[in-house]
Protein backbone atom coordinates (compact mmCIF):
# COMPACT_ATOMS: atom_id res chain seq x y z
CA UNK A 1 0.00 0.00 0.00
CA UNK A 2 1.27 3.45 -0.89
CA UNK A 3 1.33 5.97 1.94
CA UNK A 4 2.43 9.57 2.06
CA UNK A 5 2.90 12.31 4.63
CA UNK A 6 0.71 15.39 4.70
CA UNK A 7 0.99 18.95 5.96
CA UNK A 8 -1.21 20.35 8.72
CA UNK A 9 -1.34 24.00 9.72
CA UNK A 10 -1.62 24.09 13.49
CA UNK A 11 -2.75 27.63 14.24
CA UNK A 12 -2.46 30.61 14.07
CA UNK A 13 -6.19 30.63 14.87
CA UNK A 14 -6.51 27.66 17.18
CA UNK A 15 -7.31 27.78 20.91
CA UNK A 16 -4.64 25.23 21.79
CA UNK A 17 -1.85 27.42 20.48
CA UNK A 18 -2.41 29.93 23.32
CA UNK A 19 -2.56 32.86 20.95
CA UNK A 20 -1.34 33.26 17.43
CA UNK A 21 1.38 30.64 17.23
CA UNK A 22 1.59 28.92 13.88
CA UNK A 23 3.20 25.50 13.54
CA UNK A 24 3.39 23.80 10.15
CA UNK A 25 3.37 20.09 10.95
CA UNK A 26 4.40 17.34 8.57
CA UNK A 27 2.43 14.26 9.63
CA UNK A 28 2.66 10.59 8.88
CA UNK A 29 -0.76 9.42 10.00
CA UNK A 30 -0.91 10.85 13.49
CA UNK A 31 2.84 10.99 14.06
CA UNK A 32 4.78 14.21 13.53
CA UNK A 33 7.78 13.78 11.22
CA UNK A 34 8.58 17.43 10.61
CA UNK A 35 7.73 20.76 12.18
CA UNK A 36 8.29 24.43 11.45
CA UNK A 37 7.32 26.99 14.07
CA UNK A 38 6.35 30.37 12.66
CA UNK A 39 5.94 33.41 14.85
CA UNK A 40 5.45 37.14 14.40
CA UNK A 41 1.66 37.41 14.08
CA UNK A 42 1.59 39.63 17.18
CA UNK A 43 4.77 41.58 16.41
CA UNK A 44 4.21 45.22 17.33
CA UNK A 45 7.80 46.38 17.16
CA UNK A 46 7.97 47.41 20.81
CA UNK A 47 11.77 47.72 20.67
CA UNK A 48 11.49 50.26 17.86
CA UNK A 49 8.48 52.12 19.30
CA UNK A 50 10.17 52.81 22.61
CA UNK A 51 13.11 54.51 20.93
CA UNK A 52 10.75 57.45 20.47
CA UNK A 53 9.50 57.53 24.08
CA UNK A 54 11.09 58.95 27.22
CA UNK A 55 12.46 56.49 29.77
CA UNK A 56 9.37 56.46 32.05
CA UNK A 57 7.07 56.18 29.01
CA UNK A 58 8.59 52.77 28.22
CA UNK A 59 7.12 51.18 31.37
CA UNK A 60 3.55 50.67 30.00
CA UNK A 61 4.99 48.91 26.95
CA UNK A 62 6.62 46.29 29.17
CA UNK A 63 3.17 45.43 30.59
CA UNK A 64 2.26 44.22 27.13
CA UNK A 65 5.15 41.82 26.67
CA UNK A 66 4.07 38.91 28.85
CA UNK A 67 0.62 40.31 29.58
CA UNK A 68 -0.04 37.72 32.29
CA UNK A 69 2.77 39.06 34.45
CA UNK A 70 2.95 42.79 33.82
CA UNK A 71 4.27 43.62 37.26
CA UNK A 72 7.35 41.40 36.84
CA UNK A 73 8.07 42.94 33.44
CA UNK A 74 7.85 46.44 34.93
CA UNK A 75 10.35 45.39 37.55
CA UNK A 76 13.00 44.19 35.10
CA UNK A 77 12.86 47.37 33.04
CA UNK A 78 12.98 49.82 35.96
CA UNK A 79 15.79 47.87 37.60
CA UNK A 80 17.82 48.10 34.38
CA UNK A 81 17.48 51.89 34.35
CA UNK A 82 18.30 52.01 38.06
CA UNK A 83 21.44 49.99 37.33
CA UNK A 84 22.36 52.39 34.52
CA UNK A 85 21.88 55.45 36.73
CA UNK A 86 23.02 53.95 40.03
CA UNK A 87 19.78 54.70 41.92
CA UNK A 88 19.26 53.23 45.39
CA UNK A 89 15.64 52.17 45.92
CA UNK A 90 14.02 52.65 49.39
CA UNK A 91 13.61 49.46 51.35
CA UNK A 92 9.83 49.58 51.54
CA UNK A 93 9.63 49.88 47.77
CA UNK A 94 11.85 46.81 47.39
CA UNK A 95 9.56 44.81 49.67
CA UNK A 96 6.47 45.97 47.79
CA UNK A 97 8.14 44.99 44.53
CA UNK A 98 9.01 41.50 45.74
CA UNK A 99 5.54 41.02 47.21
CA UNK A 100 3.88 42.01 43.95
CA UNK A 101 6.30 40.07 41.75
CA UNK A 102 5.53 36.90 43.70
CA UNK A 103 1.78 37.53 43.63
CA UNK A 104 2.18 37.97 39.89
CA UNK A 105 4.04 34.66 39.67
CA UNK A 106 1.14 32.90 41.36
CA UNK A 107 -1.38 34.63 39.07
CA UNK A 108 0.64 33.67 35.99
CA UNK A 109 1.11 30.06 37.09
CA UNK A 110 -2.61 29.82 37.86
CA UNK A 111 -3.32 30.57 34.21
CA UNK A 112 -0.45 28.35 33.07
CA UNK A 113 -1.61 25.34 35.07
CA UNK A 114 -5.32 25.86 34.55
CA UNK A 115 -5.17 26.25 30.77
CA UNK A 116 -2.66 23.39 30.54
CA UNK A 117 -5.04 20.94 32.14
CA UNK A 118 -8.01 22.34 30.24
CA UNK A 119 -6.18 21.68 26.99
CA UNK A 120 -5.94 18.04 28.05
CA UNK A 121 -9.72 17.90 28.38
CA UNK A 122 -10.37 18.60 32.07
CA UNK A 123 -12.38 21.78 31.71
CA UNK A 124 -13.36 22.02 35.38
CA UNK A 125 -9.69 22.20 36.38
CA UNK A 126 -9.41 25.67 34.90
CA UNK A 127 -12.01 27.32 37.14
CA UNK A 128 -10.36 26.76 40.52
CA UNK A 129 -7.04 28.43 39.66
CA UNK A 130 -8.88 31.27 37.97
CA UNK A 131 -10.77 32.00 41.22
CA UNK A 132 -7.40 32.49 42.97
CA UNK A 133 -6.04 34.53 40.07
CA UNK A 134 -9.09 36.77 40.22
CA UNK A 135 -8.30 37.60 43.86
CA UNK A 136 -4.77 38.60 42.90
CA UNK A 137 -5.96 40.75 40.00
CA UNK A 138 -8.38 42.46 42.42
CA UNK A 139 -5.46 43.16 44.75
CA UNK A 140 -3.46 44.60 41.89
CA UNK A 141 -6.31 46.82 40.76
CA UNK A 142 -6.53 48.28 44.26
CA UNK A 143 -3.01 49.60 44.07
CA UNK A 144 -2.59 50.39 40.39
CA UNK A 145 -6.07 50.74 38.91
CA UNK A 146 -5.40 48.11 36.28
CA UNK A 147 -6.10 44.40 36.18
CA UNK A 148 -3.46 43.35 33.69
CA UNK A 149 -1.62 46.45 32.48
CA UNK A 150 -0.48 48.00 35.71
CA UNK A 151 2.20 50.59 34.92
CA UNK A 152 2.85 50.62 38.67
CA UNK A 153 6.62 50.42 39.09
CA UNK A 154 8.64 53.59 38.64
CA UNK A 155 12.32 54.28 38.09
CA UNK A 156 13.42 54.65 41.72
CA UNK A 157 10.51 52.92 43.44
CA UNK A 158 6.81 52.36 42.93
CA UNK A 159 4.09 54.81 41.89
CA UNK A 160 2.04 54.87 45.11
CA UNK A 161 2.14 53.29 48.52
CA UNK A 162 -0.15 50.31 49.10
CA UNK A 163 -3.81 51.28 49.28
CA UNK A 164 -5.54 50.68 52.67
CA UNK A 165 -7.96 48.27 50.95
CA UNK A 166 -5.01 46.14 49.92
CA UNK A 167 -4.23 44.77 53.39
CA UNK A 168 -7.53 43.11 54.35
CA UNK A 169 -7.81 41.57 50.89
CA UNK A 170 -4.27 40.21 51.09
CA UNK A 171 -5.06 38.76 54.54
CA UNK A 172 -8.06 37.12 52.99
CA UNK A 173 -5.99 35.68 50.16
CA UNK A 174 -3.32 34.38 52.52
CA UNK A 175 -5.99 32.67 54.62
CA UNK A 176 -7.75 30.97 51.74
CA UNK A 177 -4.90 30.03 49.43
CA UNK A 178 -3.45 26.98 51.31
CA UNK A 179 -6.83 25.25 51.08
CA UNK A 180 -6.89 25.73 47.34
CA UNK A 181 -3.40 24.23 46.96
CA UNK A 182 -4.37 21.20 49.00
CA UNK A 183 -7.58 20.68 47.03
CA UNK A 184 -5.92 21.11 43.69
CA UNK A 185 -3.21 18.57 44.50
CA UNK A 186 -5.96 16.10 45.33
CA UNK A 187 -7.81 16.93 42.15
CA UNK A 188 -4.95 16.66 39.65
CA UNK A 189 -1.76 15.01 40.94
CA UNK A 190 -2.92 11.41 40.82
CA UNK A 191 -5.45 11.74 38.05
CA UNK A 192 -4.99 8.70 35.79
CA UNK A 193 -5.90 10.51 32.59
CA UNK A 194 -3.66 13.43 33.36
CA UNK A 195 -0.73 11.14 34.13
CA UNK A 196 -1.29 9.07 31.00
CA UNK A 197 -1.33 12.19 28.87
CA UNK A 198 1.77 13.81 30.39
CA UNK A 199 4.22 11.26 31.83
CA UNK A 200 7.14 10.58 29.49
CA UNK A 201 5.69 12.96 26.92
CA UNK A 202 7.90 15.72 25.58
CA UNK A 203 10.99 14.70 27.50
CA UNK A 204 13.78 17.29 27.42
CA UNK A 205 17.23 16.34 28.67
CA UNK A 206 19.16 18.78 30.83
CA UNK A 207 21.80 19.27 28.10
CA UNK A 208 19.18 20.07 25.47
CA UNK A 209 17.37 22.45 27.82
CA UNK A 210 20.59 24.34 28.53
CA UNK A 211 21.67 24.44 24.90
CA UNK A 212 18.30 25.81 23.77
CA UNK A 213 18.41 28.50 26.46
CA UNK A 214 15.29 27.26 28.24
CA UNK A 215 14.67 29.10 31.49
CA UNK A 216 12.16 29.17 34.29
CA UNK A 217 10.01 26.17 35.21
CA UNK A 218 10.68 24.54 31.82
CA UNK A 219 14.41 24.41 32.56
CA UNK A 220 14.04 23.34 36.18
CA UNK A 221 11.67 20.52 35.21
CA UNK A 222 14.64 19.00 33.37
CA UNK A 223 16.60 18.86 36.60
CA UNK A 224 18.73 21.99 36.27
CA UNK A 225 18.66 23.89 39.55
CA UNK A 226 18.93 27.40 38.13
CA UNK A 227 16.87 30.13 39.67
CA UNK A 228 18.16 33.71 39.52
CA UNK A 229 16.44 34.53 42.80
CA UNK A 230 18.88 32.10 44.44
CA UNK A 231 21.94 32.18 42.21
CA UNK A 232 22.31 35.96 41.87
CA UNK A 233 19.64 37.54 44.06
CA UNK A 234 18.32 40.90 42.89
CA UNK A 235 16.13 43.31 44.86
CA UNK A 236 15.83 41.85 48.40
CA UNK A 237 15.39 38.18 47.49
CA UNK A 238 18.43 37.18 49.55
CA UNK A 239 16.46 37.96 52.73
CA UNK A 240 13.74 35.37 52.27
CA UNK A 241 13.64 31.71 53.07
CA UNK A 242 12.43 29.64 50.12
CA UNK A 243 13.46 26.71 47.98
CA UNK A 244 13.73 26.30 44.24
CA UNK A 245 11.48 23.73 42.64
CA UNK A 246 13.41 21.21 40.55
CA UNK A 247 12.04 18.31 38.53
CA UNK A 248 13.69 15.07 37.44
CA UNK A 249 12.47 13.74 34.12
CA UNK A 250 11.87 16.86 32.08
CA UNK A 251 8.54 15.59 30.81
CA UNK A 252 5.18 17.36 30.70
CA UNK A 253 4.18 16.01 34.11
CA UNK A 254 7.28 17.42 35.78
CA UNK A 255 6.60 20.82 34.28
CA UNK A 256 3.25 20.76 36.10
CA UNK A 257 4.85 19.57 39.35
CA UNK A 258 7.51 22.29 39.23
CA UNK A 259 4.93 25.03 38.67
CA UNK A 260 2.80 23.83 41.59
CA UNK A 261 5.85 23.71 43.86
CA UNK A 262 6.87 27.19 42.75
CA UNK A 263 3.46 28.54 43.62
CA UNK A 264 3.87 27.20 47.14
CA UNK A 265 7.34 28.71 47.46
CA UNK A 266 6.09 32.06 46.16
CA UNK A 267 3.38 31.92 48.78
CA UNK A 268 6.08 31.52 51.44
CA UNK A 269 7.90 34.61 50.13
CA UNK A 270 4.65 36.61 50.09
CA UNK A 271 3.97 35.80 53.73
CA UNK A 272 7.51 36.77 54.75
CA UNK A 273 7.61 39.98 52.72
CA UNK A 274 4.20 41.00 54.06
CA UNK A 275 5.22 40.35 57.65
CA UNK A 276 8.62 42.02 57.47
CA UNK A 277 7.62 45.00 55.34
CA UNK A 278 9.23 48.14 56.78
CA UNK A 279 7.67 51.60 56.88
CA UNK A 280 9.14 54.49 54.93
CA UNK A 281 9.10 56.19 51.57
CA UNK A 282 8.36 54.27 48.37
CA UNK A 283 10.26 56.51 45.94
CA UNK A 284 13.92 57.43 45.81
CA UNK A 285 15.02 60.97 44.96
CA UNK A 286 15.04 60.84 41.18
CA UNK A 287 15.45 63.80 38.82
CA UNK A 288 12.22 64.97 37.15
CA UNK A 289 13.79 64.48 33.73
CA UNK A 290 15.46 61.11 33.55
CA UNK A 291 18.68 61.27 31.55
CA UNK A 292 20.95 58.28 32.25
CA UNK A 293 24.66 58.76 31.56
CA UNK A 294 26.05 57.53 28.23
CA UNK A 295 26.51 53.78 28.40
CA UNK A 296 24.65 50.51 28.45
CA UNK A 297 23.31 48.05 31.01
CA UNK A 298 21.96 44.52 30.95
CA UNK A 299 19.80 43.20 33.74
CA UNK A 300 17.76 40.04 34.02
CA UNK A 301 15.32 38.61 36.50
CA UNK A 302 13.41 35.42 37.14
CA UNK A 303 9.94 36.02 35.72
CA UNK A 304 7.10 33.49 35.88
CA UNK A 305 7.85 32.25 32.35
CA UNK A 306 11.62 32.29 32.69
CA UNK A 307 14.41 34.83 32.55
CA UNK A 308 13.43 38.21 31.19
CA UNK A 309 16.47 40.26 30.27
CA UNK A 310 16.62 43.93 29.35
CA UNK A 311 19.47 45.62 27.51
CA UNK A 312 19.35 49.41 27.41
CA UNK A 313 21.76 51.74 25.61
CA UNK A 314 21.73 55.41 26.58
CA UNK A 315 23.19 58.27 24.57
CA UNK A 316 22.62 60.77 27.37
CA UNK A 317 19.34 62.10 25.97
CA UNK A 318 15.89 61.70 27.63
CA UNK A 319 15.01 58.91 25.19
CA UNK A 320 16.62 55.46 25.15
CA UNK A 321 18.93 54.92 22.18
CA UNK A 322 18.18 51.21 22.07
CA UNK A 323 16.10 48.85 24.19
CA UNK A 324 16.21 45.10 23.75
CA UNK A 325 14.28 42.47 25.68
CA UNK A 326 15.34 38.86 26.09
CA UNK A 327 11.91 37.29 26.26
CA UNK A 328 11.81 33.88 27.97
CA UNK A 329 8.99 32.33 25.89
CA UNK A 330 10.83 33.21 22.67
CA UNK A 331 13.82 31.14 23.71
CA UNK A 332 11.67 28.44 25.26
CA UNK A 333 9.70 27.62 22.12
CA UNK A 334 12.78 27.46 19.89
CA UNK A 335 13.05 23.81 20.99
CA UNK A 336 9.60 22.94 19.57
CA UNK A 337 10.72 21.97 16.07
CA UNK A 338 13.03 19.33 17.49
CA UNK A 339 10.78 18.26 20.37
CA UNK A 340 7.61 17.67 18.36
CA UNK A 341 9.15 15.06 16.07
CA UNK A 342 7.95 11.54 16.87
CA UNK A 343 5.00 12.70 18.97
CA UNK A 344 1.34 12.21 18.18
CA UNK A 345 -0.69 15.29 17.42
CA UNK A 346 -2.54 15.05 20.76
CA UNK A 347 0.81 14.96 22.55
CA UNK A 348 1.86 18.09 20.71
CA UNK A 349 -1.10 19.87 22.29
CA UNK A 350 0.07 18.62 25.69
CA UNK A 351 3.65 19.78 25.09
CA UNK A 352 2.53 23.18 23.88
CA UNK A 353 0.30 23.66 26.91
CA UNK A 354 2.96 22.44 29.36
CA UNK A 355 5.33 25.22 28.26
CA UNK A 356 2.99 28.02 29.39
CA UNK A 357 3.81 30.39 26.54
CA UNK A 358 2.55 33.89 25.94
CA UNK A 359 2.64 35.16 22.38
CA UNK A 360 2.78 38.78 23.52
CA UNK A 361 6.37 38.30 24.57
CA UNK A 362 7.39 35.85 21.87
CA UNK A 363 6.55 38.37 19.17
CA UNK A 364 7.23 41.55 21.17
Amino acid at each position, binding site marked *: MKTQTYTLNFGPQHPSTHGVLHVVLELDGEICVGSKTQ*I*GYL*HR*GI*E*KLVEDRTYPQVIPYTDRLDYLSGMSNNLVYVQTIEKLMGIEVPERAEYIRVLLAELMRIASHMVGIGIYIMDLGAVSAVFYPFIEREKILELMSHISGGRMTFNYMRIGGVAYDLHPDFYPELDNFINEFPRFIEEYHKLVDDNEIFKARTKNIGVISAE*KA*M*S*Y*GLTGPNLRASG*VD*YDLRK*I*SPYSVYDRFDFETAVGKNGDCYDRYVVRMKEVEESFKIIKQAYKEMPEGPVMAKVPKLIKPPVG*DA*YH*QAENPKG*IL*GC*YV*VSDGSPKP*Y*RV*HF*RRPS*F*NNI*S*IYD*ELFIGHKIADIVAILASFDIVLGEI*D*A
Partner: protein
Amino acid sequence: MKNEKNYPELLTGRFGDKTVFNPEKPNEVYTDGDNLISVLEFLKNEGLNFLADISSVDYKEYFEVVYQLFSFDNSDHLTIKVKLDHNNPQVPSATALWETANWLEREVYDLMGITFINHPNLERILTWEGFEGHPLRKDFVSKKQSSRK
Protein backbone atom coordinates in the same frame (compact mmCIF):
# COMPACT_ATOMS: atom_id res chain seq x y z
CA MET B 1 28.42 41.50 41.16
CA LYS B 2 31.99 40.21 41.09
CA ASN B 3 32.84 37.15 39.02
CA GLU B 4 34.32 34.06 40.64
CA LYS B 5 36.85 33.57 37.84
CA ASN B 6 39.12 36.29 36.51
CA TYR B 7 38.04 36.20 32.88
CA PRO B 8 40.17 39.14 31.68
CA GLU B 9 43.30 37.31 32.83
CA LEU B 10 42.19 33.99 31.31
CA LEU B 11 41.33 35.59 27.98
CA THR B 12 44.50 37.66 27.77
CA GLY B 13 46.53 34.53 28.54
CA ARG B 14 44.85 32.64 25.73
CA PHE B 15 44.21 35.29 23.07
CA GLY B 16 46.74 38.04 23.88
CA ASP B 17 45.71 41.42 22.49
CA LYS B 18 42.84 40.03 20.43
CA THR B 19 40.46 40.67 23.33
CA VAL B 20 40.21 44.19 24.70
CA PHE B 21 38.96 45.13 28.17
CA ASN B 22 37.79 48.37 29.62
CA PRO B 23 39.31 48.61 33.12
CA GLU B 24 36.21 50.45 34.39
CA LYS B 25 33.89 47.71 33.17
CA PRO B 26 35.49 44.37 34.06
CA ASN B 27 32.45 42.43 32.77
CA GLU B 28 32.85 43.61 29.21
CA VAL B 29 35.08 42.25 26.45
CA TYR B 30 35.60 43.51 22.94
CA THR B 31 36.77 41.10 20.28
CA ASP B 32 36.58 40.90 16.49
CA GLY B 33 34.58 38.71 14.14
CA ASP B 34 37.53 36.44 13.27
CA ASN B 35 38.15 35.44 16.89
CA LEU B 36 34.58 35.53 18.15
CA ILE B 37 33.77 31.84 17.88
CA SER B 38 37.03 30.69 19.48
CA VAL B 39 36.52 33.22 22.30
CA LEU B 40 32.95 31.99 22.88
CA GLU B 41 34.05 28.36 22.77
CA PHE B 42 36.87 29.05 25.21
CA LEU B 43 34.52 30.80 27.62
CA LYS B 44 31.91 28.06 27.30
CA ASN B 45 34.51 25.50 28.37
CA GLU B 46 35.58 27.81 31.22
CA GLY B 47 32.06 27.61 32.68
CA LEU B 48 30.08 30.39 30.98
CA ASN B 49 27.77 27.81 29.46
CA PHE B 50 24.56 29.86 29.25
CA LEU B 51 24.09 32.11 26.23
CA ALA B 52 21.29 34.30 27.56
CA ASP B 53 20.93 36.85 24.83
CA ILE B 54 22.22 38.22 21.54
CA SER B 55 21.32 41.81 20.80
CA SER B 56 22.59 44.44 18.43
CA VAL B 57 22.96 48.21 18.36
CA ASP B 58 23.20 50.54 15.38
CA TYR B 59 25.71 53.28 16.30
CA LYS B 60 25.41 54.86 12.82
CA GLU B 61 29.14 54.54 12.03
CA TYR B 62 29.25 50.89 13.02
CA PHE B 63 27.12 48.04 14.37
CA GLU B 64 27.71 46.26 17.62
CA VAL B 65 26.57 42.70 18.34
CA VAL B 66 26.30 42.02 22.07
CA TYR B 67 26.45 38.51 23.57
CA GLN B 68 25.40 38.00 27.21
CA LEU B 69 27.12 34.98 28.73
CA PHE B 70 26.11 33.53 32.06
CA SER B 71 26.82 30.32 33.91
CA PHE B 72 24.37 27.64 35.02
CA ASP B 73 26.56 26.96 38.06
CA ASN B 74 27.24 30.39 39.56
CA SER B 75 26.47 34.06 39.13
CA ASP B 76 29.31 34.88 36.71
CA HIS B 77 28.45 37.20 33.85
CA LEU B 78 30.43 38.42 30.86
CA THR B 79 29.35 40.62 27.97
CA ILE B 80 31.07 40.01 24.64
CA LYS B 81 30.88 42.80 22.08
CA VAL B 82 31.86 42.77 18.43
CA LYS B 83 32.07 45.90 16.32
CA LEU B 84 31.01 45.49 12.71
CA ASP B 85 31.43 47.54 9.59
CA HIS B 86 28.26 49.47 8.74
CA ASN B 87 28.34 48.70 5.02
CA ASN B 88 28.74 44.96 5.23
CA PRO B 89 27.90 43.71 8.72
CA GLN B 90 28.86 40.03 9.02
CA VAL B 91 29.77 37.85 11.94
CA PRO B 92 30.17 34.08 12.26
CA SER B 93 27.23 32.19 13.73
CA ALA B 94 27.36 30.64 17.21
CA THR B 95 24.80 27.95 16.36
CA ALA B 96 27.44 25.22 16.56
CA LEU B 97 27.96 26.06 20.24
CA TRP B 98 24.41 26.78 21.38
CA GLU B 99 21.13 25.80 19.73
CA THR B 100 19.49 28.90 21.16
CA ALA B 101 21.72 31.05 18.95
CA ASN B 102 19.63 29.90 15.99
CA TRP B 103 16.55 31.98 16.84
CA LEU B 104 18.43 34.78 18.58
CA GLU B 105 20.56 35.33 15.47
CA ARG B 106 17.54 35.14 13.19
CA GLU B 107 15.93 37.91 15.23
CA VAL B 108 19.05 40.09 14.96
CA TYR B 109 19.21 39.40 11.22
CA ASP B 110 15.55 40.21 10.73
CA LEU B 111 15.41 43.44 12.69
CA MET B 112 18.97 44.76 12.31
CA GLY B 113 20.17 43.19 9.08
CA ILE B 114 23.36 41.59 10.36
CA THR B 115 24.41 38.47 8.45
CA PHE B 116 25.50 35.45 10.44
CA ILE B 117 27.93 33.33 8.42
CA ASN B 118 27.28 29.56 8.49
CA HIS B 119 23.84 29.95 10.05
CA PRO B 120 21.74 26.91 9.04
CA ASN B 121 18.51 28.79 8.40
CA LEU B 122 18.97 32.55 8.23
CA GLU B 123 15.39 33.67 7.50
CA ARG B 124 13.24 36.48 8.79
CA ILE B 125 11.48 35.47 12.00
CA LEU B 126 9.25 38.29 13.28
CA THR B 127 8.47 40.13 10.07
CA TRP B 128 7.23 38.38 6.97
CA GLU B 129 9.03 37.11 3.90
CA GLY B 130 9.42 39.94 1.44
CA PHE B 131 9.48 42.65 4.09
CA GLU B 132 11.78 45.45 2.97
CA GLY B 133 14.54 46.80 5.20
CA HIS B 134 15.53 46.14 8.78
CA PRO B 135 13.37 48.12 11.22
CA LEU B 136 15.77 48.59 14.11
CA ARG B 137 18.34 50.38 11.96
CA LYS B 138 18.44 54.08 12.66
CA ASP B 139 18.06 54.98 8.97
CA PHE B 140 14.95 52.78 8.53
CA VAL B 141 11.94 54.60 7.10
CA SER B 142 8.63 52.77 7.12
CA LYS B 143 6.28 52.94 4.13
CA LYS B 144 3.74 54.89 6.16
CA GLN B 145 6.32 57.47 7.22
CA SER B 146 7.67 57.94 3.70
CA SER B 147 4.19 58.47 2.19
CA ARG B 148 3.38 61.13 4.79
CA LYS B 149 6.34 63.31 3.80
